[in-house]
């Protein structure tokens, strides 16, 4: 239990750290929403000053941070000047969509990467391994921006996929089943882009982890006891490779969250990506901070989940031998 | 007899601070005292985890004992600061168990052996090379191999290189930390002979750390037996081997593999 307590504390400290860090950067940043406003001749300088005072942007940094934490505790996460609304509800509506995309892509990518990676490791140096290595290398040199744009052009020219967005026109009047299918249809392209961009990395990591274990002395020892190959590969090798694979899970979530940000913008999926971009262009400070924090929460949660898996899979952690 | 090294009641504890828990302490050495006469060999025998290597690091001034004092060549070295220690260290040299790890694989034999001279700023480049070549000759490394890199040598030759490097600063005390343990029997014998020859020629003092009582008996004048961070028995080699006082010593001696079959229970055929 001390293990979880420690991990939990680490996660909390991490979130506090990230929020302070982003605040610090925002403080150094020249310009904010009202500076852009000041350029607008229709708004008088007095109005701007009054607004600044109203949102207490003229107060020192610690005060602003305290106020922001306070509003966070009240479920608001600060105020969006551009949208004239608290940040949290804005974020939540978008974060759901980002999560939907990211989690679906994570599941599919892992479901494909595990068998492919093991197969590749098993046939090390032979044809299947070489073919897979070639394929992953080919995918690896196509960055997701290029991939997403390419898929979009394909969609536009072929008409097989919707060219963006999350819903068809007239979504509101569809039955629940139709709604589900409509969203699923809109998801196909962005998920495909995400899976294709994460897959080569995952396959390569899985292959490396399993291949390393296949060379381990304890597998040779087990083979010398006559334990059959199937048991060796699928029970002994996978269990021993569990550790790096689980930490890879947290890492893959980070990759997919970043990827999702870009894919959302390119394919106009109403997730955090477009919201964040708009906020940056409008210098809508608290939305940016909120968005960054939100993504950190996802990642930290994912890593916490990985820690739980690790605890369950590795007795060395359970018995505290890995404490050092 | 003139004692080159006197170790008095040294203790070494490692503390490990913990974020949530209390501070854990591990005692590696407890009340260790002994001395070595100039030009003689003391063997320090014990099983793994008995604190032998920690003791070696403390004497070589690479770790500071928590308490106690070490007198080397009539100087108390436990009170010196880092800068003064740098002056003392060249006089006490260490040879490690695994030469593959104690020699930087990127260096050539010549670079390895002349490195201490370079660090100490002794001699100029040509003199350093001449001195290094002479040292290589002393430990039996053929001159034509002087430019090979460490990883191209065999285990025994690497240990010869490590000894040559240790000798380059003309130390008074050589600490051999399991220096023979990783080697094959025939190579062990070669290095053991080399060590005896060097001692005779240069008047070196050895602290020979080992778990092998046979080699300790062969090389050492005195033997100290360690267990769990303490020296439990110390005396002339023949006395310790012939009339062991302590249970550990007897156990270790009994565990010595012997060539003569009678030493073991005869086997029913």
């Amino acid at each position: 239990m001390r293990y979880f307590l420690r991990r939990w504390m680490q996660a909390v400290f991490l979130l506090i750290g990230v929020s302070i860090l982003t605040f610090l950067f925002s403080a150094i940043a020249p310009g904010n929403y009202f500076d852009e406003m000041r350029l607008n001749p229709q708004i008088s300088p007095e109005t701007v000053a009054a607004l600044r005072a109203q949102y207490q942007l003229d107060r020192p940094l610690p005060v602003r941070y305290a106020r922001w934490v306070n509003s966070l505790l009240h479920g608001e996460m600060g105020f969006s000047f551009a949208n004239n609304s608290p940040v949290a509800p804005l974020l939540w509506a978008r974060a759901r969509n980002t999560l939907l995309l990211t989690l679906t892509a994570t599941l599919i990518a892992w479901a494909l990467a595990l068998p492919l990676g093991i197969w590749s490791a098993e046939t090390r140096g032979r044809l299947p391994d070489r073919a897979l290595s070639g394929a992953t290398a080919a995918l690896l040199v196509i960055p997701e921006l290029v991939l997403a744009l390419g898929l979009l052009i394909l969609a536009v020219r072929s008409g097989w996929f919707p060219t963006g967005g999350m819903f068809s026109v007239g979504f509101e009047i569809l039955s629940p089943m139709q709604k589900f299918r409509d969203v699923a249809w809109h998801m196909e392209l962005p998920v495909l882009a995400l899976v294709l961009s994460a897959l080569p990395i995952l396959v390569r990591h899985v292959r490396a982890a399993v291949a390393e274990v296949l060379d381990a002395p304890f597998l040779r020892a087990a083979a010398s006891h006559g334990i059959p190959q199937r048991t060796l590969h699928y029970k002994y090798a996978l269990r021993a490779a569990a550790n790096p694979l689980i930490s890879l899970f947290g890492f893959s979530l980070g990759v997919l969250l970043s990827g999702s940000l870009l894919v959302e913008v390119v394919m106009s999926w109403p997730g955090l990506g477009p919201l964040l971009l708009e906020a940056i262009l409008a210098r809508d400070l608290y939305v940016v901070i909120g968005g960054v924090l939100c993504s950190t929460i996802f990642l930290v949660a994912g890593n916490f989940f990985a820690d739980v898996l690790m605890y369950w899979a590795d007795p060395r952690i359970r018995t505290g031998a890995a404490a050092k | 007899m003139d004692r080159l090294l006197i170790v008095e009641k040294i203790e070494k504890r490692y503390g490990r601070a913990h974020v949530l828990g209390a501070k854990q302490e591990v005692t590696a050495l407890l009340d260790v005292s002994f001395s070595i006469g100039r030009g003689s060999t003391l063997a320090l025998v014990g099983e793994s985890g008995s604190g032998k290597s920690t003791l070696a690091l403390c004497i070589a001034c690479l770790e500071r004992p928590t308490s106690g004092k070490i007198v080397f060549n009539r100087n108390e070295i436990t009170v010196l600061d880092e800068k003064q220690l740098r002056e003392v260290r060249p006089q006490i040299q260490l040879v490690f168990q695994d030469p593959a790890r104690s020699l930087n694989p990127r260096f050539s034999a010549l670079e390895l052996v002349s490195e201490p001279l370079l660090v100490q700023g002794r001699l100029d480049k040509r003199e350093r090379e001449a001195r290094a070549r002479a040292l290589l000759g002393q430990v039996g490394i053929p001159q034509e191999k002087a430019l090979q890199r460490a990883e191209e040598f065999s285990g025994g030759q690497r240990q010869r290189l490590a000894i040559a490097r240790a000798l380059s600063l003309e130390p008074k005390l050589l600490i051999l930390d399991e220096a023979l343990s990783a080697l094959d029997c025939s190579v062990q014998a070669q290095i053991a002979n080399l060590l005896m020859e060097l001692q005779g020629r240069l008047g070196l003092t050895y602290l020979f750390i080992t778990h092998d009582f046979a080699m300790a008996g062969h090389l050492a004048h005195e033997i100290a037996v360690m267990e769990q961070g303490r020296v439990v028995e110390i005396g002339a080699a023949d006395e310790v081997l012939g009339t062991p006082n302590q249970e550990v010593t007897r156990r270790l001696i009994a565990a010595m593999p012997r060539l003569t079959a009678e030493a073991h229970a005869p086997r029913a055929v």
Partner: protein
Amino acid sequence: MISLLQVQDLHVAYISGAGKVSPALEGVSFDVLPGETLGVLGESGSGKSTLALALVRLLPGNAEIQKGAIQFEGQDLLRARPRALERVRGARIGLVFQEPSLALHPTIRIGKQVSDVLAAHEAASRAARHQKTLQLLREVFPADASRIADSYPHQLSGGQQQRVLIAQAIACGPSLIIADEPTASLDPTTQQEILELFRMLREKFNLSLILITHNPPLLAGLADRVLVLYAGKVVEIGPTEQVLGSPQHPYTHALMQSVPPGLDEPAKDRKSRLRVIPGEAPNLAVLMNGCRFESRCTDRMEQCAEREPPAVAMSEVHAVSCFKYGE
């Protein structure tokens, strides 16, 4: 008596990525009788570990068995199918490795790892396997078998881990155990305990044992016969007392001389120099015509550099490959 294991003219070589062949074993022949202990004595580079792995066909991918035959209980293991090999490994031949800490799966309980070996070879109920596992562990841990069964490898000491490996090796009642430097990584007292365990199990289960080591004294009092490997070749084979006590091959002779004298010798002899073998072991990747030991040998003759010496029988049980004893 009919031999349990008969190795004939075994040749093994490692092939580097660039296709360079360096032989590891050349023309190795020997046999092991039922219930007999054969000591294999060799220094690093002699091919002794290669021999252990070759006997059960577990060599790494870059090694190749070039020719020879390994007859074991009536079948040639070099020509056996993979399934047949799986039935031999672990069931008829048990292996014990040098580094026990690396030879156990780090995240599976000891009991499970032992019972997996049983499961691989015997169709028995889970409960029966569990009983048998505990019984096996009691053979090596008389005191606390059930606690050990519930432990993970990292919770055990090196000596305990080695005992577990031995339990695995004897699990299915094999007729032969091959132990490759089983005590090299252990402390001297633990070393003796493990050797004592081998001695006990050998009597109890009438096992044949191949004990591979670089340390001659380990074999005294344990091995019935000793086979000496030098640079991939058998240089001498014979009863332990003869090979260790009055070695005939110049290499064996010099090797025995270089072991520090025991405590039974007078002290003044102990402080004298050891007799050593000059020079270094040969590089096997370089082709050689004559005796492998020729360059380091004090008794070398003209023909030594030209031809390989054949094995000469000193007696019915003792053979030496050296020209000193005739052609």
